[in-house]
């Protein structure tokens, strides 16, 4: 390590702020059985903290629920492509 923050207990350590990473879940965006009306969308705003390309999503849903990236507006957009109400669960991660 040549610079940055390193946290150690004297034996084990971690988190070097140069090229290292911390794998985080953003639980503020955790959704469980979120209802989405026919043709509806749900936007997750990811701007304001780092590179939006370094954000991932995990999704539990049927095939009518799709995920797209709106990089212009730093959003992840979850859409219901069906003609009826659907539900989904999702988690957002920062991992790169």
């Amino acid at each position, binding site marked *: 390590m040549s610079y940055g923050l390193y946290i150690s207990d004297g034996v084990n350590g971690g*988190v070097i702020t*140069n090229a*290292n990473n*911390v794998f985080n879940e*953003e639980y*503020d965006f955790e959704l469980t059985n979120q209802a989405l009306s026919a043709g509806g969308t749900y936007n997750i705003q990811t701007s304001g903290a780092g590179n939006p390309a370094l954000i991932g999503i995990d999704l539990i849903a049927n*095939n009518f629920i799709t995920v797209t990236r709106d990089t212009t507006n730093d959003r992840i957009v979850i859409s219901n492509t069906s003609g009826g109400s659907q539900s989904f669960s999702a988690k957002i991660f920062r*991992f790169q």
Partner: protein
Amino acid sequence: MSEYGLTVYNDNGGLMFDSSRKMNSYIITEIGTGTGPSATVASDDFLFVKIPSGQASSFANTVIFMGVGFNAQFYGRVGTFNNSGDSSFANATAVTLDYFVVKHSSKVSSTDDYGLTVYNEDNTIQFDSRSIKLGQHFLITEYHEPRSVDAWSTTNGGISLGSNSDYWEISNWTSGTLSSFEGDTSLVGLLFSGAPYAINYFSTAGSGFGFGGGNEGPFGGGGSTTTSSETWGDSITGMILSAELI
């Protein structure tokens, strides 16, 4: 960026900590080689596995998946594949893999009275340096978005997920029945065939016995193609991650 608290970026633009954003940092709690971790894997945890060094050939045609909940164990079912609609899988056996487990930092307790704790704005813990118990750490090397993976089948070679030398997360998306009964088999898992591939297989005859299931259950996956009694899912519903120890 917040105007208060602690925010840390790395030199790649990745956000490491931000005390204003309600995040949970993951840390390694267990590294080993065996047929499963020492403790049950919780729904927020991730478990990464790889084939032990020099044993790739013994895992050829083996679909690896994980039983979760009361029996967090690694399983493999050896497939006999053909494209005429009657592939088959041997009964599941426990397989020995290299693995590591990661959990939210806030869930690892410590009685030490020193270190660095990062709190979220709602006073929950984002990161606690006392949760670091091991000298090794991990780096996410691949991320495959839900339904983005082209799953392997007998008529579609699928897309390589990455490298066999990486650890692959299996606790949140793999599942499978342990045996077949009158041909009924469900498998969502990893096939290490030169490189790691995702597989999403279901045969419909009879009823099987089994357990497990990632978050999406045994019917996870996107669209599908059906031949005879077999269904090969074209994709995987959940995200797929790989990592390396550093």
